[in-house]
């Protein structure tokens, strides 16, 4: 598909990827498929099946657990449904639980099941969605009679399992033959560890009811789908990977935003997206733009709408602003449904969305997918790109951010295609998560010796629960006697256990909740916290009641915390020497204190000052880590530079490489530097350590240890191949650092690299200078143009500027002509004057000494009119 809208932006395209179409592989129905289903398929126009659908059916029929990893829209749902419905038609008591990560997805997939129910009749097959929104009588029906139950992990955890003996759930469990899990790749990190433990609990319950369900899973492309499925369930799987579905041609543009003039800063992907989207809407293209945060969705949406309402030559009657919509978490369910519906109907052209839309929801034909920034993992990127081209050729645009992976892609777009996708990592034996589920399991069914196999740390956990009075020893089995509903004690998707509330002091409303780690980093006393575009200052962080009190404020800076990290190696498990370094993996204790913060001015990033934090904000984290030994010569050289800490560059590069390898986000792995100390206090050896950010570790660094050497090599190549001249935030984390030096240090871990390079980088304090379209001296001529420009930028005081018909320039002075002396005083009020001057400075080239003044022009006739009117009234 040719995209003419890309033409004006041609110079931004750094590379292009073309993916050829693929022919479908059709096969006959499997022999074992029952006649009724064959007839059904025939009537629905499926004369043949895709090869993967038959492959899945045949292996499922053998009783094997199967995982399928074919592309989006390849008919995965039918692959699940054939073996399940075949069984239901043979044994009407059969029950199957379909687990989806979101309610929306369950609703979407339910629609695919309905045709079977309608065709075979409710006396043969019943299905239903069982989630938080399901009304009581429907719940009763589903428990009693639904063969296929669509639900989510939260419901399994807190409704199905704890109530297994009640309300007919016992019948569900005793006849449970299939557990279907869609979008398996989302079960990584803490969420995955919880899911693995939910499956452990499910297995105990099924064993009690003497059933042994078979697993049918599907996953987007990740490196280790089979391994992930096997870790989650403890069972072996057959992997269906050959995709028999056809695919359309796809063309992907890699878009590098330009530098803001004279600066080291690139324009943001959001700004760039807002540039091209209006053209697409005008041309009637159907598209999705994926943004990385809720805030970015709103920014792109607003900027796009502003532009659409200002397009020249388009009559204002033809309003295009409602041709796009936002789509993100935080929108109401009805709103989201309405948007999906309008999108399918073609009433809107496109959506600006977060990854809330990423998971399989069908929104009809899409021509173009724009990724505003690389979504973090390749798995996620391909999932997003896969939303287009379900039925015809499609275009993808990846607008790069300044992040390290984005900038790596800029120089090496093959990364997207050629190298393997990420590993999904989880550790189901994380002690905290295990504890949470042992408690829940105990309440469901007393703990017996058999559970030692399921929960490896049970022998440590039980004595503590006995001591706490939560368990009772009933002659060799342990019965739960603790509080109600232990399965409700934790969240499957939130990381930390201590939740802080951020309260707006003005109206007492809660702005948000966050875990302790975030709270210490974002809402320490005097921090500026931003929410929904509004700034708040933190008045107090109450550590006892876990409340941060904030009040709205308008300041020109934001705050960034400074931390101190200490590392204790508790125990080394494994260690490997290679090249000139040594990588070790083990249990570590990380102590991090938030000690100070700096204030950074908006737009120009000037450091306005540095304040220490009085409160003792330290967190301890017992976790797992991977640490690299730094060769002595490298260590000596790095330490000889005192102006900047080059270890930060080494750490940054290794951390990024490890995150890419293990599909980890910034919430999964952290990094720091530490030294081992000899008895006399002399520094002995230096290390860079990467560690899991979840208590007890979730397996990210354990996985990284397996790739320790590759990660080091990746780090080197990312720094080496970065397009920047001498070091940027992407490759070394800080533009102050000379990348020659960082590269030398990293390479020095592999081979002796001789003399260290001379650091030549001279860092000026960067003062950002934006491209300014106007000059003070042209302003009188371009005044109208300038006003509509301000409007497109949604600047403040638009209402005021619109009352000004013309301006004059005298020397450094910009003079506004107003029609009343009151206006003059009002404008020249110090604060207003400053604000107006700032707005002008932002968009107009002005001399240093620039200021504004106001001239009152006579409008006597108007005043006369008012006086006359007033006279009339008083007379």
């Amino acid at each position: 598909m040719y995209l003419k809208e890309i033409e004006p932006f041609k110079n931004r395209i750094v590379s292009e990827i073309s993916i050829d179409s693929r022919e479908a592989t059709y096969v006959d129905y499997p022999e074992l498929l029952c006649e009724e289903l064959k007839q059904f398929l025939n009537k629905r126009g499926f004369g043949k099946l895709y090869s993967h659908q038959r492959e899945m059916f045949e292996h499922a029929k053998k009783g094997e657990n199967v995982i399928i990893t074919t592309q989006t829209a390849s008919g995965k749902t039918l692959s699940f449904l054939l073996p399940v419905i075949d069984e239901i038609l043979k044994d009407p008591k059969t029950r199957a639980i379909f687990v989806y990560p979101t309610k929306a997805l369950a609703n979407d997939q339910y629609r695919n099941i309905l045709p079977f129910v309608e065709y075979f009749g409710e006396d043969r097959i019943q299905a239903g969605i069982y989630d938080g929104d399901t009304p009581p009588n429907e719940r009763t029906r589903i428990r009693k009679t639904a063969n296929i139950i669509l639900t989510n992990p939260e419901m399994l955890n807190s409704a199905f399992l704890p109530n297994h003996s009640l309300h007919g759930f016992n019948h569900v469990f005793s006849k449970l033959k299939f557990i279907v899990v869609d979008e398996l790749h989302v079960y990584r990190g803490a969420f995955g560890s919880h899911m693995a433990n939910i499956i452990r609990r499910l297995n105990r319950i099924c064993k009690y009811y003497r059933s042994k369900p078979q697993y049918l899973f599907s996953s987007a492309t990740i490196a280790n789908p089979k391994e992930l499925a096997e870790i989650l369930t403890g069972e072996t799987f057959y992997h269906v990977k050959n995709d028999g579905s056809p695919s359309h041609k796809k063309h992907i543009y890699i878009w590098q935003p330009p530098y803001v003039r004279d600066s080291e800063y690139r324009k943001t992907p959001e700004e760039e997206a807002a540039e091209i989207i209006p053209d697409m809407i005008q041309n009637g293209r159907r598209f999705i733009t994926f943004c990385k945060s809720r805030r970015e969705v709103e920014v792109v949406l607003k900027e796009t709408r502003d532009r659409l309402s200002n397009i020249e030559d388009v009559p204002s009657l033809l309003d295009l602003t409602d041709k796009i919509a936002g789509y993100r978490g935080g929108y109401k369910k009805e709103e989201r449904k309405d948007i999906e519906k309008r999108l399918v109907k073609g009433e809107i052209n496109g959506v600006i969305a977060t990854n809330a839309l990423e998971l399989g929801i069908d929104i009809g034909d899409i021509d173009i997918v724009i990724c505003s920034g690389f979504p973090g993992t390749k798995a996620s990127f391909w999932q997003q790109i896969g939303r287009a081209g379900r039925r015809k050729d499609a275009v993808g645009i990846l607008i790069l951010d300044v992040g390290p992976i984005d900038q790596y892609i800029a120089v090496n777009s093959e990364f997207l295609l050629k190298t393997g996708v990420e590993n999904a990592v989880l550790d189901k034996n994380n002690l905290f998560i295990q504890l949470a589920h042992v408690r829940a399991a105990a309440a469901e069914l007393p703990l017996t010796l058999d559970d030692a196999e399921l929960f490896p740390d049970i022998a440590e956990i039980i004595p503590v629960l006995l001591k706490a009075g939560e368990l009772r020893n009933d002659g060799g089995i342990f019965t739960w006697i603790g509080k109600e509903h232990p399965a409700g004690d934790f969240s499957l998707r939130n990381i930390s256990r201590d939740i802080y509330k951020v309260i707006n002091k003005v109206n007492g409303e809660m702005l948000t909740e966050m875990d302790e780690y975030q709270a210490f980093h974002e809402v320490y006393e005097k921090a500026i916290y931003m929410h929904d575009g509004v700034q708040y200052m933190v008045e107090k962080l109450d550590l006892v009641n876990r409340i941060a009190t904030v009040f709205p404020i308008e300041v020109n800076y934001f705050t960034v915390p400074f931390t101190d990290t200490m590392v204790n190696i508790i125990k080394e498990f494994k260690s490997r020497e290679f090249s000139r370094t040594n990588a070790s993996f083990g249990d570590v204790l990380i102590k991090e204190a938030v000690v100070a913060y700096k204030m950074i001015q908006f737009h120009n990033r000037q450091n306005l000052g540095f304040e220490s934090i009085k409160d003792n904000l330290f967190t301890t984290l017992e976790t797992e880590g991977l640490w690299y030994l730094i060769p002595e010569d490298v260590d000596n050289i790095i330490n000889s530079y005192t102006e900047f800490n080059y270890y930060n560059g080494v750490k940054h590069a290794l951390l990024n490489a490890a995150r890419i390898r293990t599909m980890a986000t910034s919430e999964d792995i952290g990094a720091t530097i530490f030294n081992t100390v000899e008895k006399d206090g002399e520094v002995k050896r230096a290390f860079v350590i990467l560690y899991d950010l979840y208590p007890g570790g979730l397996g990210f660094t354990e996985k990284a240890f397996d790739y320790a050497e590759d990660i080091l090599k990746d780090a080197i190549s990312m720094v080496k191949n970065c397009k920047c001249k001498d070091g940027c935030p992407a490759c070394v984390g800080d533009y102050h650092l000379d990348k020659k030096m960082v590269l030398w240090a990293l390479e020095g871990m592999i081979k002796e690299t001789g003399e260290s390079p001379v650091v030549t980088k001279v860092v000026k304090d960067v003062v950002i200078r934006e491209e300014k379209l106007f000059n003070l001296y042209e302003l009188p001529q371009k005044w109208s143009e300038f006003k509509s420009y301000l409007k497109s930028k949604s600047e403040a005081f638009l209402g005021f500027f619109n009352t000004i018909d013309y301006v004059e320039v005298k020397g450094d002075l910009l003079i506004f002509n107003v029609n009343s002396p009151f206006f003059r005083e009002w404008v020249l009020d110090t604060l207003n004057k400053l604000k107006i001057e700032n707005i002008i400075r932002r968009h107009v080239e002005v001399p240093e000494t620039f200021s504004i003044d106001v001239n009152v022009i006579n409008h006597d006739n108007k005043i006369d009119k008012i006086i006359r009117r007033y006279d009339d009234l008083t007379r």
Partner: protein
Amino acid sequence: MQEIFDKLNSFQRIAVETDEKYVALKASVGSGKTTVIIYRVLYLYFIKGIPLDKIMVVTFTNKAVDEIRDRLKNYINDELKYLGTFHSIANKILRENVELERYGYSKDFKIITNEEAAEILNKIVEEGKLKIKYKSKILKRIEEFKSGNVLYANMKKQDDIKKLYEEYKKVKLENDLMDYEDLIVNCNDFLNSKLDIMHIIIDEFQDTDYMQLEFVEKIAGENTNIFVVGDPNQTIYSFRTGTYRIFDRFIDRYKATIYELPINYRSTKTITEAAAALIGEKIYCEREYGEPIRITAHYDAFNEANYVLRRIKELKDKGINLNDIAVLFRRQIQGEVVYDVLSRELDCDFIKDNEKPVAHSDRQAVKLLTLHSSKGLEFRCVFIIGVNEGNIPISNKREIEEEELRLFFVGITRAKEILEISYIKSPSFFGFKGYKSQYISMLPKDLVVEQRNESNYTLSEIYDMLRLEKEKSNSTKNKVVHKKYGEGIVVYEDENIIKVRFEAYGEKEFLKMFYSAEFI
């Protein structure tokens, strides 16, 4: 013959040998009232020479009928002509003594069960397109209608209940059908002459209702003696039938002579005293103190049922016959959870209300029944489950609450030796509160062993404890190797627990049964 009466105690003997025409015998729980009824019949037959067809014995359940019949067989070859429940006797009288044809019925009329009655009612509603609220409780609606209540539950407006009732009557007549209640009502309506009965003996008189008393008056002639036996403390149907103080009414009406059976032979002194404390009366007991009453708290109904299962298995291992064990509960739905759990490993009979027990003649089985259906029965071991506020008493309305207390009294007095009472903390049934019933607190503390647990830690508090355990350290000499933690030193050991200090992990406590380290 006289000597067989010698084994009766003086209270029983006075009652058995009385010549008073109208007698009200107030029998304490477990005081041998069935024995009195048997010996009364023997006395009348052998000593007073009353023919068997002139003696009528009315009991409350078929099981009681069987017991009396069996025990009489030891002495008399022939059977009593009138021995049965009110319903079965009414049935006999209708067919033998009433000209049914005059009322549109035949002698071969058919009796319908409650299920069949509900089926007919539903069919009428459907075919006549009647508007009936609470259709799932249609029998209850009819019952209420008969006692004059046109509205039910939170109904504000009348529906077609009257029409339904009329139609139902018509259908029954047309098809020669009678439901259980019709037997007595029709007997009262159709019987025109007194029966030639010299003695009527009524068991469980405390739960006889007005309609049944009317029935008795209908058949009893001038010369008929009436002997009623019962325990007012065990009245558990007065709310259901709307019949209050039936003993006083009888005594008033007939100027009856009152006798008492005050001595309990059934239960241990422990159980008897506990029961007495509930009703605030003294009950004499012949037996010694026995096992204390065990009171346990459980997480939920499922855990409670599993506990009962384990206890029953222990009892079975000690040689107790399953037939001697009963599990009692307030609501039938509780029984379903227990049945599901118990029947996995044990034989058990779930005896549902209004249902004749299935005869499993020589099978040993635990009995699961509601407190209501436990009336008149006794077991060596009794478990009363779900003794939660909101379940027993099911409501705190005064007239209900008083009867609920008597129901609980009936429950605990079913036990001869072992009594266990349990409640749950996380209930799932409507109305159930998550704490124990006030009745448990009424039991004297010295008679019970109560297991309490008050634990309310959060997950993160427990996690901190777990971490603390890991950090503690101590030392002795025993060295061990653990799969995950490596080398460590045993710092404490007893029969259940072993504590090991590991170099890197600190001290850890293991249960020996789960412990997987090796000594070196």
